[in-house]
């Protein structure tokens, strides 16, 4: 084992971590909003909106992110009307495009995950809410969302971890995050395994922290299912 090489590699890669985190948090943030909008369209009962949401999920969940990102970044620039529109100053920026395509993609997945969570809610509890006059937003906020979120949490933490790894594709559009830097190092040094192991370690640590956080969240949100209520213990 060549420790000087490993430590140098590690330092180089660590410098790219802030970029990875920036891509990650921005795309999770916007993706979540978009996903909520899509779920709302999907289950809201309006057939037109529901069909649009279905189509969205189909396209963004069904095709590889690599292709989506390529088309968003390189494809949009091929159209004159976009190049000369007010959007171009934004779309010109690689970071914006990377976040845009990451968020568009995760929104499709997240929407499906939350829809699954909603399906798992006991119909009886929904009825009880309707019977006191809850509907629309209040019903969602007070009953559906908390229960659905709790059900969806394991799948959603998976999706978040996936997003962390998906940021790796951003080097395709000249945003150099951890994986991109690792690949660049590899094409300079050809020590594939060592460099990749360092990168893997970084992702593993980042994801481990996220998963641990999600597990804690899951635990604190499932007090009602634990055998003995904490209140009775102490």
């Amino acid at each position, binding site marked *: 084992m060549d420790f000087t090489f490993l430590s140098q590699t590690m330092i180089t890669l660590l410098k790219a971590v802030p970029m990875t985190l920036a891509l990650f948090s921005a795309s999770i943030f916007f993706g979540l909003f978009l996903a909520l909008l899509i779920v709302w369209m999907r289950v809201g009962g309006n057939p037109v909106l529901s069909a649009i949401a279905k189509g969205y999920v*189909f396209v963004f969940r069904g095709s590889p992110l690599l292709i989506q990102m390529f088309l968003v970044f390189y494809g949009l620039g*091929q159209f004159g009307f976009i190049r000369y529109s007010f959007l171009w100053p934004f779309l010109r920026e690689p970071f914006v495009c990377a976040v845009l395509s990451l968020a568009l993609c995760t929104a499709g997945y997240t929407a499906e995950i939350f829809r699954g969570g909603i399906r798992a*809610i006991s119909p009886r509890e*929904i009825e009880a809410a309707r019977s006191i006059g809850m509907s629309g937003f209040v019903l969602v906020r007070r009953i559906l969302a908390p229960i659905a979120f709790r059900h969806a949490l394991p*799948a959603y933490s998976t999706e978040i971890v996936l997003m962390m790894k998906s940021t790796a594709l951003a080097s395709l559009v000249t945003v150099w995050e951890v994986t991109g830097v690792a690949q660049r190092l590899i094409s300079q040094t050809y020590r594939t*395994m060592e460099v990749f192991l360092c990168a893997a370690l970084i992702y593993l640590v980042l994801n481990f922290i996220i998963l641990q956080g999600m597990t804690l969240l899951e635990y604190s949100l499932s007090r009602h299912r634990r055998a003995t209520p904490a209140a009775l213990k102490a």
Partner: protein
Amino acid sequence: MATMELIGFGSTGWGALLLLGAATTLAVTATALAIGALLGTIVAGAKLSGNWLLSAMGSLYTTVFRGVPELLIIYLIYFGGSSAMTAIGTAMGYEGFLGLPSFAAGALAVGIISGAYQAEVFRGAYLAISKGELEAASAIGMHRGLRFRRIIMPQVLRFAIPGLGNVWQLSLKDSALVSVTGLAELMRTSQVAAGSTRQYFLFFIIGGALYLILTSLSDRVFNGAERRTNRSMPAAAMGQA
């Protein structure tokens, strides 16, 4: 016109190669899903077992294989696997190189990853089963295995189908990374076609469309399964006012 020729099935058309790529992708993904189902069941069982050692091992598996970039796992299995096999071969007196075939290495790698995701899906589905129904099964003396087969499995499948649909999608796309093993699946075929003809947008769009076709086929399968398992659920509580 030139476009139609490029994606057609004539001597200058890429149609046949792209379809072959799609079929390879489908085969890799399906094999991986089967491997993953087996691993996922075992790992989910370990995590739910209540035995701390087993559940720690299960957690380790899901954390590592979800947390480490897929590409690396594919590398490890493809290159690491053949180094190991070559070493064993040499020890047994065989001269030269022994390798996992690309397809086997790719499907195994994607399967191991998919196993981590399926484990989480199964675990979530298990937790969604009504406790009362499990108690009712214990109360008539169903032993573990029977309870698993008769009560847990059917309900886990019911709750897991949407999640499995997601895992299928993931594996479909992870299979695109298998191209580093030299397997000509859909993604690599699209890239080769794009690079050889310099028609990048055309072939990426065609590639994307073929992925969507694969998705819609698999969606049909999963939706059908979902509908069938939903017969026993009360009429849609969500749909109406």
